[in-house]
Protein backbone atom coordinates (compact mmCIF):
# COMPACT_ATOMS: atom_id res chain seq x y z
CA UNK A 1 0.00 0.00 0.00
CA UNK A 2 1.45 3.34 -1.04
CA UNK A 3 -0.37 6.66 -0.66
CA UNK A 4 -3.49 4.68 0.27
CA UNK A 5 -3.50 2.86 -3.06
CA UNK A 6 -2.70 -0.83 -3.20
CA UNK A 7 -0.40 -2.30 -5.83
CA UNK A 8 -3.34 -4.38 -7.10
CA UNK A 9 -5.29 -1.18 -7.75
CA UNK A 10 -2.32 0.27 -9.63
CA UNK A 11 -2.10 -2.89 -11.72
CA UNK A 12 -5.77 -2.76 -12.57
CA UNK A 13 -5.56 0.94 -13.33
CA UNK A 14 -2.60 0.50 -15.66
CA UNK A 15 -3.64 -2.80 -17.19
CA UNK A 16 -7.33 -1.93 -17.41
CA UNK A 17 -10.30 -3.30 -15.54
CA UNK A 18 -10.55 -0.90 -12.59
CA UNK A 19 -14.12 0.20 -11.86
CA UNK A 20 -14.86 3.79 -12.84
CA UNK A 21 -15.14 5.11 -9.28
CA UNK A 22 -11.69 3.79 -8.29
CA UNK A 23 -10.21 4.88 -11.62
CA UNK A 24 -11.39 8.43 -10.90
CA UNK A 25 -9.79 8.32 -7.43
CA UNK A 26 -6.46 7.12 -8.88
CA UNK A 27 -6.69 9.75 -11.62
CA UNK A 28 -7.13 12.46 -8.97
CA UNK A 29 -4.18 11.11 -7.00
CA UNK A 30 -1.97 11.09 -10.09
CA UNK A 31 -2.70 14.73 -10.79
CA UNK A 32 -1.67 15.63 -7.21
CA UNK A 33 1.32 13.32 -6.66
CA UNK A 34 4.37 13.87 -8.88
CA UNK A 35 6.09 10.70 -7.60
CA UNK A 36 3.24 8.37 -8.56
CA UNK A 37 2.65 10.36 -11.76
CA UNK A 38 6.27 9.76 -12.80
CA UNK A 39 6.02 6.00 -12.12
CA UNK A 40 2.70 5.78 -13.91
CA UNK A 41 4.01 7.76 -16.89
CA UNK A 42 7.06 5.50 -17.19
CA UNK A 43 4.97 2.32 -17.09
CA UNK A 44 2.46 3.75 -19.58
CA UNK A 45 5.32 4.62 -21.89
CA UNK A 46 6.54 1.02 -21.72
CA UNK A 47 3.05 -0.18 -22.50
CA UNK A 48 2.94 1.91 -25.70
CA UNK A 49 6.50 1.06 -26.69
CA UNK A 50 5.96 -2.67 -26.25
CA UNK A 51 2.85 -2.55 -28.43
CA UNK A 52 4.75 -0.60 -31.07
CA UNK A 53 7.76 -2.93 -31.09
CA UNK A 54 5.54 -6.02 -31.10
CA UNK A 55 3.81 -4.64 -34.21
CA UNK A 56 7.24 -4.48 -35.89
CA UNK A 57 7.90 -8.08 -34.92
CA UNK A 58 4.55 -9.12 -36.40
CA UNK A 59 5.33 -7.20 -39.59
CA UNK A 60 8.73 -8.91 -39.85
CA UNK A 61 7.04 -12.32 -39.64
CA UNK A 62 4.08 -11.44 -41.84
CA UNK A 63 2.85 -14.38 -43.87
CA UNK A 64 2.42 -13.77 -47.59
CA UNK A 65 -0.86 -14.67 -49.36
CA UNK A 66 1.07 -17.36 -51.28
CA UNK A 67 2.33 -18.93 -48.07
CA UNK A 68 -1.17 -18.88 -46.60
CA UNK A 69 -2.62 -20.46 -49.72
CA UNK A 70 0.01 -23.22 -49.57
CA UNK A 71 -0.61 -23.74 -45.87
CA UNK A 72 -4.36 -24.01 -46.32
CA UNK A 73 -4.03 -26.51 -49.18
CA UNK A 74 -1.58 -28.64 -47.18
CA UNK A 75 -3.77 -28.49 -44.06
CA UNK A 76 -6.88 -29.49 -45.98
CA UNK A 77 -5.02 -32.42 -47.50
CA UNK A 78 -3.87 -33.51 -44.06
CA UNK A 79 -7.35 -33.14 -42.61
CA UNK A 80 -8.76 -35.15 -45.54
CA UNK A 81 -6.29 -37.96 -44.86
CA UNK A 82 -7.01 -38.17 -41.15
CA UNK A 83 -10.76 -37.62 -41.46
CA UNK A 84 -11.79 -38.98 -44.88
CA UNK A 85 -15.52 -38.74 -44.33
CA UNK A 86 -17.79 -36.25 -42.54
CA UNK A 87 -21.42 -36.30 -41.59
CA UNK A 88 -23.41 -33.31 -42.86
CA UNK A 89 -23.72 -31.94 -39.31
CA UNK A 90 -20.02 -32.30 -38.50
CA UNK A 91 -19.11 -30.50 -41.70
CA UNK A 92 -21.61 -27.69 -40.99
CA UNK A 93 -20.13 -27.25 -37.51
CA UNK A 94 -16.65 -27.08 -38.96
CA UNK A 95 -17.57 -24.35 -41.44
CA UNK A 96 -19.33 -22.46 -38.69
CA UNK A 97 -16.18 -22.53 -36.53
CA UNK A 98 -14.18 -21.42 -39.54
CA UNK A 99 -16.26 -18.31 -40.20
CA UNK A 100 -16.77 -17.22 -36.58
CA UNK A 101 -13.45 -15.33 -36.36
CA UNK A 102 -14.49 -13.35 -39.47
CA UNK A 103 -18.01 -12.37 -38.54
CA UNK A 104 -18.66 -13.28 -34.88
CA UNK A 105 -20.74 -16.00 -33.28
CA UNK A 106 -24.19 -14.50 -33.89
CA UNK A 107 -23.71 -13.77 -37.59
CA UNK A 108 -22.03 -17.14 -38.18
CA UNK A 109 -24.95 -18.95 -36.50
CA UNK A 110 -27.54 -16.98 -38.47
CA UNK A 111 -25.69 -17.54 -41.77
CA UNK A 112 -25.44 -21.28 -41.14
CA UNK A 113 -29.12 -21.51 -40.26
CA UNK A 114 -30.15 -19.60 -43.38
CA UNK A 115 -27.82 -21.60 -45.63
CA UNK A 116 -29.20 -24.87 -44.23
CA UNK A 117 -32.80 -23.69 -44.82
CA UNK A 118 -32.02 -22.67 -48.39
CA UNK A 119 -30.29 -25.98 -49.09
CA UNK A 120 -33.03 -28.19 -47.68
CA UNK A 121 -35.93 -27.03 -49.84
CA UNK A 122 -38.50 -29.56 -51.09
CA UNK A 123 -37.79 -32.03 -48.27
CA UNK A 124 -34.17 -32.63 -49.26
CA UNK A 125 -32.21 -34.75 -46.80
CA UNK A 126 -28.64 -34.35 -45.56
CA UNK A 127 -26.67 -35.79 -48.45
CA UNK A 128 -23.63 -34.87 -50.60
CA UNK A 129 -25.78 -32.91 -53.10
CA UNK A 130 -27.35 -30.87 -50.30
CA UNK A 131 -23.87 -30.28 -48.93
CA UNK A 132 -22.70 -28.81 -52.25
CA UNK A 133 -25.72 -26.51 -52.23
CA UNK A 134 -25.07 -25.56 -48.61
CA UNK A 135 -21.42 -24.69 -49.37
CA UNK A 136 -22.47 -22.57 -52.30
CA UNK A 137 -25.11 -20.70 -50.23
CA UNK A 138 -22.78 -20.26 -47.28
CA UNK A 139 -19.96 -19.03 -49.49
CA UNK A 140 -22.26 -16.52 -51.19
CA UNK A 141 -23.49 -15.19 -47.84
CA UNK A 142 -20.00 -14.91 -46.40
CA UNK A 143 -18.84 -13.05 -49.53
CA UNK A 144 -21.53 -10.43 -49.07
CA UNK A 145 -21.18 -10.15 -45.27
CA UNK A 146 -17.40 -10.47 -44.75
CA UNK A 147 -15.89 -9.98 -48.22
CA UNK A 148 -14.91 -12.19 -51.12
CA UNK A 149 -11.88 -13.68 -49.34
CA UNK A 150 -14.08 -15.16 -46.59
CA UNK A 151 -16.49 -16.50 -49.21
CA UNK A 152 -13.63 -18.06 -51.16
CA UNK A 153 -12.26 -19.67 -48.00
CA UNK A 154 -15.63 -21.21 -47.16
CA UNK A 155 -15.88 -22.57 -50.68
CA UNK A 156 -12.32 -23.93 -50.66
CA UNK A 157 -12.75 -25.73 -47.34
CA UNK A 158 -16.34 -26.81 -48.08
CA UNK A 159 -15.55 -28.52 -51.38
CA UNK A 160 -12.54 -30.28 -49.86
CA UNK A 161 -14.69 -32.09 -47.28
CA UNK A 162 -16.16 -35.40 -48.24
CA UNK A 163 -19.67 -35.55 -46.84
CA UNK A 164 -21.03 -39.09 -46.67
CA UNK A 165 -24.48 -40.21 -47.75
CA UNK A 166 -26.72 -40.77 -44.71
Amino acid at each position, binding site marked *: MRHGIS*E*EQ*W*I*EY*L*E*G*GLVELHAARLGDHLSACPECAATFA*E*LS*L*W*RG*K*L*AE*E*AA*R*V*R*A*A*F*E*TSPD*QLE*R*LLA*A*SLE*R*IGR*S*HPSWTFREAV*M*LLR*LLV*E*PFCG*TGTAGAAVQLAVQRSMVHGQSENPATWDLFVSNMSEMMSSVCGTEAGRLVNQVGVSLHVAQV
Partner: protein
Amino acid sequence: MITYFRVRGCDLDVAEDLAQEVMLAAYTRSSGLRSRALFRPWLYKIARNTFLQWLRRNRREVETVELEAALWQAESRSPDPLRTLQFSQWMAALDADERQIMLLRYVEEMEYHDIAEVLGMPIGTVQWKIFNSKKKLARRFGAP
Protein backbone atom coordinates in the same frame (compact mmCIF):
# COMPACT_ATOMS: atom_id res chain seq x y z
CA MET B 1 -0.54 -19.09 -36.08
CA ILE B 2 2.61 -19.16 -38.19
CA THR B 3 3.82 -16.03 -36.37
CA TYR B 4 3.12 -17.75 -33.03
CA PHE B 5 5.64 -20.47 -33.89
CA ARG B 6 8.11 -18.24 -35.71
CA VAL B 7 8.38 -15.81 -32.81
CA ARG B 8 9.19 -18.82 -30.63
CA GLY B 9 12.18 -19.73 -32.78
CA CYS B 10 10.82 -22.13 -35.42
CA ASP B 11 11.96 -21.65 -39.00
CA LEU B 12 9.29 -21.17 -41.66
CA ASP B 13 9.03 -24.85 -42.69
CA VAL B 14 8.62 -26.02 -39.10
CA ALA B 15 6.18 -23.18 -38.33
CA GLU B 16 4.01 -24.16 -41.32
CA ASP B 17 4.11 -27.80 -40.31
CA LEU B 18 3.12 -27.02 -36.72
CA ALA B 19 0.37 -24.63 -37.86
CA GLN B 20 -1.04 -27.49 -39.95
CA GLU B 21 -0.94 -29.77 -36.91
CA VAL B 22 -2.88 -27.16 -34.94
CA MET B 23 -5.50 -26.83 -37.67
CA LEU B 24 -5.86 -30.59 -37.91
CA ALA B 25 -6.16 -30.95 -34.13
CA ALA B 26 -8.68 -28.09 -33.99
CA TYR B 27 -10.86 -29.67 -36.66
CA THR B 28 -10.78 -33.14 -35.18
CA ARG B 29 -11.25 -31.98 -31.58
CA SER B 30 -13.78 -29.24 -32.24
CA SER B 31 -16.43 -31.14 -30.27
CA GLY B 32 -14.27 -30.59 -27.15
CA LEU B 33 -14.72 -26.83 -27.39
CA ARG B 34 -16.68 -25.79 -24.28
CA SER B 35 -17.96 -22.49 -25.60
CA ARG B 36 -17.65 -20.75 -28.94
CA ALA B 37 -16.48 -17.61 -27.17
CA LEU B 38 -13.42 -19.57 -26.04
CA PHE B 39 -12.40 -20.46 -29.60
CA ARG B 40 -9.26 -18.29 -29.72
CA PRO B 41 -7.77 -19.30 -26.34
CA TRP B 42 -8.68 -22.91 -27.10
CA LEU B 43 -6.78 -22.71 -30.39
CA TYR B 44 -3.76 -21.17 -28.66
CA LYS B 45 -3.85 -23.89 -26.02
CA ILE B 46 -3.57 -26.41 -28.82
CA ALA B 47 -0.75 -24.34 -30.35
CA ARG B 48 1.07 -24.19 -27.04
CA ASN B 49 0.80 -27.95 -26.52
CA THR B 50 1.87 -28.57 -30.11
CA PHE B 51 4.90 -26.33 -29.60
CA LEU B 52 5.87 -28.03 -26.31
CA GLN B 53 5.55 -31.46 -27.94
CA TRP B 54 7.74 -30.28 -30.80
CA LEU B 55 10.34 -29.01 -28.33
CA ARG B 56 10.32 -32.34 -26.52
CA ARG B 57 10.65 -34.22 -29.82
CA ASN B 58 13.58 -32.06 -30.79
CA ARG B 59 15.08 -32.07 -27.29
CA ARG B 60 15.28 -28.32 -27.29
CA GLU B 61 14.66 -25.94 -24.44
CA VAL B 62 12.11 -23.14 -24.32
CA GLU B 63 14.59 -20.41 -23.78
CA THR B 64 15.62 -17.00 -24.92
CA VAL B 65 18.18 -18.30 -27.35
CA GLU B 66 15.40 -19.40 -29.68
CA LEU B 67 13.52 -16.15 -29.49
CA GLU B 68 16.68 -14.20 -30.13
CA ALA B 69 17.63 -16.44 -33.04
CA ALA B 70 14.18 -15.96 -34.54
CA LEU B 71 14.25 -12.21 -34.13
CA TRP B 72 17.74 -12.00 -35.59
CA GLN B 73 16.43 -13.95 -38.55
CA ALA B 74 13.47 -11.58 -38.84
CA GLU B 75 15.84 -8.64 -38.85
CA SER B 76 16.80 -9.20 -42.44
CA ARG B 77 13.18 -8.60 -43.46
CA SER B 78 12.46 -5.83 -41.02
CA PRO B 79 12.67 -2.25 -42.29
CA ASP B 80 14.39 -1.25 -39.07
CA PRO B 81 16.54 -4.14 -37.82
CA LEU B 82 17.78 -2.50 -34.64
CA ARG B 83 14.29 -2.10 -33.34
CA THR B 84 13.50 -5.78 -33.76
CA LEU B 85 16.66 -6.58 -31.88
CA GLN B 86 15.55 -4.18 -29.18
CA PHE B 87 12.37 -6.20 -28.66
CA SER B 88 14.49 -9.32 -28.40
CA GLN B 89 16.70 -7.69 -25.76
CA TRP B 90 13.64 -6.69 -23.75
CA MET B 91 12.20 -10.19 -23.85
CA ALA B 92 15.58 -11.68 -22.88
CA ALA B 93 15.47 -9.64 -19.67
CA LEU B 94 12.30 -11.43 -18.54
CA ASP B 95 11.91 -14.92 -17.15
CA ALA B 96 10.24 -17.65 -19.23
CA ASP B 97 6.77 -17.16 -17.69
CA GLU B 98 6.82 -13.40 -18.10
CA ARG B 99 8.09 -13.69 -21.67
CA GLN B 100 5.33 -16.14 -22.58
CA ILE B 101 2.68 -13.77 -21.21
CA MET B 102 4.19 -10.67 -22.85
CA LEU B 103 4.35 -12.44 -26.23
CA LEU B 104 0.71 -13.46 -25.96
CA ARG B 105 -0.32 -9.97 -24.86
CA TYR B 106 1.69 -7.85 -27.28
CA VAL B 107 2.62 -10.01 -30.28
CA GLU B 108 -0.60 -12.08 -30.34
CA GLU B 109 -2.65 -9.13 -29.02
CA MET B 110 -4.64 -11.29 -26.62
CA GLU B 111 -6.97 -10.02 -23.91
CA TYR B 112 -6.04 -10.78 -20.28
CA HIS B 113 -8.87 -13.27 -19.79
CA ASP B 114 -7.82 -15.16 -22.92
CA ILE B 115 -4.19 -15.33 -21.73
CA ALA B 116 -5.42 -16.60 -18.37
CA GLU B 117 -7.43 -19.30 -20.15
CA VAL B 118 -4.52 -20.35 -22.41
CA LEU B 119 -2.00 -20.57 -19.58
CA GLY B 120 -4.45 -21.84 -16.96
CA MET B 121 -3.74 -19.11 -14.42
CA PRO B 122 -5.95 -16.53 -12.68
CA ILE B 123 -6.45 -13.26 -14.56
CA GLY B 124 -4.99 -11.36 -11.58
CA THR B 125 -1.74 -13.30 -11.94
CA VAL B 126 -1.60 -12.41 -15.63
CA GLN B 127 -2.08 -8.70 -14.84
CA TRP B 128 0.43 -8.89 -12.02
CA LYS B 129 3.08 -10.49 -14.25
CA ILE B 130 2.55 -7.96 -17.02
CA PHE B 131 2.81 -5.12 -14.52
CA ASN B 132 5.98 -6.60 -12.99
CA SER B 133 7.51 -7.22 -16.41
CA LYS B 134 7.08 -3.56 -17.27
CA LYS B 135 8.60 -2.53 -13.94
CA LYS B 136 11.51 -4.89 -14.59
CA LEU B 137 12.03 -3.42 -18.08
CA ALA B 138 11.83 0.13 -16.73
CA ARG B 139 14.43 -0.67 -14.03
CA ARG B 140 16.74 -2.43 -16.46
CA PHE B 141 16.46 -0.15 -19.51
CA GLY B 142 15.05 3.13 -18.19
CA ALA B 143 12.75 5.08 -20.49
CA PRO B 144 12.10 3.18 -23.74
